């Protein structure tokens, strides 16, 4: 099959972004933005789907046009397509289409409707570039591009200071990781003389004795991955990113963008294996992040934040998987996670939509009668997230845990991986617990809820004077007006994508694993793990382990759900009592280990103080020095001026003495 169409996958959304941008200018055109956007993403999906079987083994490069070429350095807009790319394209375009569909309803009536879809299209452009990039620089373009869109979309409600701050934080924290990534690219270029993925990978595979520089590359690249995928210590931006509209959280901050780090490591696996320590570090960071974020999620009250921490935690799983050399597991989890996490976020969005922006767990309960479809859709998502047997999350999580345990218990068992495996199981338990804590709190129990103050779903117009826009009252949007009365179920068209996602959340795991699709795809990409023998041995030995792990994690998951049911459905006072009893821990967790505060005190404030100090130095020392130098002539002038007394004799004296001194000087000293 002709691969030429592939290159349009990113550029159709780019075109859509331009068109949507134009739609921003005229109010009448606004409603066109959503269809344009959805169409462009969907066509991307269709193109990708058409190529599902046509990708040559080892991938193919589809050149498009030249970008940066100078002095032997070359980075072009050309696309690399292999099975891994296809998986990512399915996720990005597939989930993208569904989320955009959902958002077309969710965002209705918002003043920035067209703007929203502009950014979403732009995001898809960047994200597809990221996953299709043939070289690291183009990957970096996508990488930063998605960061930008994330920035723009988090700050979508730009009149809200917290949204603006969150957007800024996201961008900057990502930049920190990006710096590592950029340096990694530099090092790749210096070492391998190319930034082309394929060439670099081939070169990496031929490295026999890795030099220090080479072993440094994965660590630098890793930094980028940690930033983008919100791993320790660069995870801080993701919870705040929930300030954005919920579809954005679903698409960008759960399903696609944040998985870019996993994708990148999987994609560059041959480079990562050059250093014996790189992947274990990835695994450790992933494992720690998983449990760390899960504990925080335990004690949060904001629905979206819980999901945000859960995302961080799940991303940790993926890193754990990739770090344990199970790229299949990592990518598999990425794939399934996209379904159920998008589903969870979108259903959370529905809840918010219904409750006028209410997000606090404590202020809602028993919504199952009001919103039955949403309730059960979310239930499906929760099951998958909790790793309930036979759901998608179950299979993928299991594959990771099995791989980790395999490394821990296998022939050359490493205690480190054993510990990570146990940590993973513990996280699985926590995940099941907090997931269902949320679900039981929201949908079970007595029906009672408070409406929120609504900034979601419709834009707060603030000072809209002089713009010829709707006056303030109308700005609160038609939908919202009825929301103020009561919670309600979403329309069917809006729930349609959720149903598709729910189907995926249940079936995707079983299908992908048992048809061998995911494994064959990943194994025929650059993420393939070469090291046949140990893989073979693991398979032999691991069959039992695999089964054992399935049992154990099923049990853990059910235990978690049951515990949640007890505390948050059947006996809520017990939960409150427990919370009171371990107040300090709860406070610590509720305040997210005070990481934001620590960062603020340890990094932001000192930097800003440095800025103030530098500014003072600039004015008081550097500029003053310049002024001082400028004053030297003036000081000399003041001195010389004293001789210009105006008196005739004084001048005569000056002349006589001056002449005499000069005469003596030159005659006796100089000669």
């Amino acid at each position, binding site marked *: 099959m002709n691969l030429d169409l592939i290159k349009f996958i990113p550029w159709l959304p780019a075109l859509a972004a331009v068109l949507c941008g134009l739609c921003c200018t005229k109010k009448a055109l606004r409603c066109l933005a959503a269809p344009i956007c959805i169409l462009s993403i969907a066509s991307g999906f269709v193109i990708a789907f058409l190529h599902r079987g046509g990708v040559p083994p080892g991938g193919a490069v589809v050149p498009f046009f030249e970008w940066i070429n100078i002095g032997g350095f070359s980075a072009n807009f050309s696309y690399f397509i292999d099975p891994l790319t296809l998986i990512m394209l399915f996720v990005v375009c597939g989930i993208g289409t569904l989320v955009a569909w959902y958002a077309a309803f969710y965002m209705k009536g918002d003043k920035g409707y067209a703007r929203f879809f502009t950014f979403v299209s732009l995001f898809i452009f960047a994200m597809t570039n990221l996953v299709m990039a043939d070289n690291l620089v183009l990957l970096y373009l996508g990488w930063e591009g998605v960061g930008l869109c994330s920035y723009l979309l988090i700050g979508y409600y730009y009149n809200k200071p917290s949204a603006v701050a969150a957007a800024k934080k996201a961008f900057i924290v990502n930049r920190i990781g990006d710096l590592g990534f950029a340096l990694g690219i530099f090092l790749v270029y210096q070492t391998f003389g190319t930034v082309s993925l394929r060439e670099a990978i081939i070169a990496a595979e031929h490295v026999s004795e890795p030099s220090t520089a080479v072993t440094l590359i994965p660590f630098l690249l890793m930094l980028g991955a940690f930033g983008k995928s919100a791993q320790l210590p660069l995870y801080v931006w993701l919870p705040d990113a929930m300030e954005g509209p919920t579809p954005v959280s679903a698409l960008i901050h759960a399903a696609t963008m944040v998985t870019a780090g996993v994708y990148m490591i999987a994609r560059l696996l041959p480079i990562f294996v050059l250093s014996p320590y790189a992947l274990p570090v990835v695994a450790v960071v992933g494992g720690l992040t998983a449990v760390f974020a899960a504990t925080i999620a335990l004690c949060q009250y904001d629905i979206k934040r819980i999901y945000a921490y859960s995302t961080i935690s799940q991303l940790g799983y993926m890193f754990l998987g990739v770090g344990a050399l199970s790229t299949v597991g990592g990518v598999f989890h990425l794939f399934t996670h996209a379904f159920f996490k998008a589903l969870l976020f979108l259903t959370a969005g529905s809840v918010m939509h219904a409750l006028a922006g209410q997000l606090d767990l404590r202020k809602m309960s028993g919504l199952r009668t009001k919103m039955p479809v949403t309730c059960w859709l979310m239930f499906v998502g929760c099951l998958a997230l909790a790793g309930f047997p036979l759901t998608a999350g179950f299979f993928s999580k299991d594959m990771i845990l099995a791989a980790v345990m395999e490394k821990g218990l296998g022939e050359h068992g490493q205690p480190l991986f054993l510990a990570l495996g146990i940590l993973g199981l513990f996280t699985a338990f926590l995940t099941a617990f907090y997931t269902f804590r949320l679900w039981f709190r929201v949908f079970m129990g007595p029906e009672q809820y408070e409406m929120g103050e609504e900034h979601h779903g419709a834009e707060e117009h603030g000072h809209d004077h002089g713009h010829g826009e709707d006056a303030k009252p109308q700005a609160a949007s038609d939908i919202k007006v009825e929301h103020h009365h009561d919670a309600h179920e979403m329309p069917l068209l809006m729930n349609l994508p959720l149903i598709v996602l729910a189907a995926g959340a249940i079936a995707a795991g079983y299908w992908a694993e048992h048809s061998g699709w995911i494994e064959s795809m990943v194994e025929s990409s650059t993420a393939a793990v070469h090291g046949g023998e140990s893989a073979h041995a693991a398979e032999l030995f691991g069959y039992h382990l695999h089964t054992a792990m399935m049992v154990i994690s099923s049990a853990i998951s059910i235990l978690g759900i049951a515990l949640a049911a007890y505390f948050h459905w059947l006996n809520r006072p017990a939960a409150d009592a427990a919370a009171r009893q371990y107040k300090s821990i709860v406070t610590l967790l509720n305040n997210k280990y005070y990481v934001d505060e620590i960062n603020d005190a340890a990094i932001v404030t000192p930097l800003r103080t440095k800025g103030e100090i530098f500014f003072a130095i600039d004015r008081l020392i550097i500029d003053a020095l310049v002024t001082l130098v400028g004053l030297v002539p003036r000081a000399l002038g003041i001195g010389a001026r004293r001789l*210009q007394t105006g008196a005739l004799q004084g001048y005569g004296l000056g*002349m006589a003495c001056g*002449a005499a001194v*000069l005469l003596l000087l*030159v005659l006796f000293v*100089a000669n």
Partner: protein
Amino acid sequence: MNMAEKIAGVWPEIALLLGAALCLLVGLARSVAIRRFTGWIAAASLLVAGWIVAAQVCNAGGVIGLTPYIKLAVVAVGLILLMVAAAVPVQLKMTRDIEAGREPFEPGLVIRGEFFAFFLFSLTGVMLTADASDLVWLFLALELTSLPTYVMVATSRDRVEAQESGVKYFFLGAMAAAVFLYGFALIYGATGQTSFSLIVDAANQQIAAQGRISPLLTTGIVLSLLGVAFKIAAVPMHFYAADVYQGATTAVTAFLAFVPKTAGFVALIALLGLLPDGYVPPAITWLLWIMAALTMTVGNVLGLMQSNVKRVLAYSSIAHSGYMLVGLLALHGSGDALGNGTAAILFYLVAYGLATIGAFAVLGSLQARGEEAETFDDISGLVRTHPVLAGVMLLSVLSLLGLPPMIGFLGKIYLFGSAIQHGFVGLVVIAVLNSAVSAVYYLRIASACFFGDSEGHTVSTPGISRPLAAGIAAVAALILGFAGGRLVSTARDAGGFPTGRNDVVTTPSQPPAATTASR
């Protein structure tokens, strides 16, 4: 060289002297209408002198040697100065009253005629300085240049400041004259000669005998240099400059800024020409080095402190003398390109003269509260009331600053290039830093004209000649900046010969071999 040739060489001076005498005579006339002719007579005699010089130059096949160059420059700049000066006598209240018939006529008080006579006398002195081939001649020429200017300063303006200027200028000038005269005496004592060429011969003999010139000769030259430094207002003989420039009427100040300075530099070049080729005693190198550095620094730093534009320009004049002293160090250079300090000084004199006369002429074209404009307040916001004059002022200060593409920039290339070629890099660095300092006060002038608010009390003086002179000077400074090639090659030809030994000029000889003697 016989007497006839010698006289043939001074025909331009004779023309000027005759003109001066005629001015004196006509100036005695009772009729105002007749006395008015004195200015035209002066102009005519300058033109005649210029014509004679031009003819001589044509005969010689080009400007060969410093003499014709200086004479041409004196005539050309003298004409501009004359335009600036044309209105001077009218400014004297007494003269006005007498001319209006309110006061009885008294020849001694009406200085129109004398003024122009003195003007011509002084210019004659400069020309003669360039002709000098003997210490006596040089002495007389220098005095002829100076003495009239004392009178011009003291009497050109009906204000007490003018008299104060006069007294300071005269007394200090007399003292300085004594100093260089003493130096002349020592030179004579060391060689037994007053003729330049004979002195050089004697010095060569001394070198042949002892490997150096006698300390007495060195001392004599050093003293002479110090005394003549008064004419160019170089440290330590600079004290008078600001006071005199301020007190004199603007036209005379412009005159002072160019004429005595030219004479002084010609004399300095002649005096250094007494040294054998390629030999400069360290004492003299040191003296010039120190004087140059001090002069430009003192001039510039004092220029920063002033509130009176004329004083600023006075200090700028000192500073420019300092730059030109740098050229003196490179005097014994080869005749080629940049390396020749003499040529550089000759060029710079014109560059500086045009720019500074332009600035003074602008000041002279303005009056505030019935007096000549001279403070920064007076020229504040000039661009609103007199945009053309402001533009001229801008061009002038930019040229003084040495900002391209004005002629002053070329002058700096020439001067500093010659100094670098002779290894005086340190001095050049001091000089360029000084240029930067000077930017402060030049910018003050420009910013007063362009950024200030006009208080409206500044009006232009009657008559077109001064603004015209200002315009001519400034435009010349601009055009010569772009098309200075001709002037540079003329200066180079003029400076390409050993100076002060005019007899050499008549026997065209090869310029001395290139000596890139560096320290």
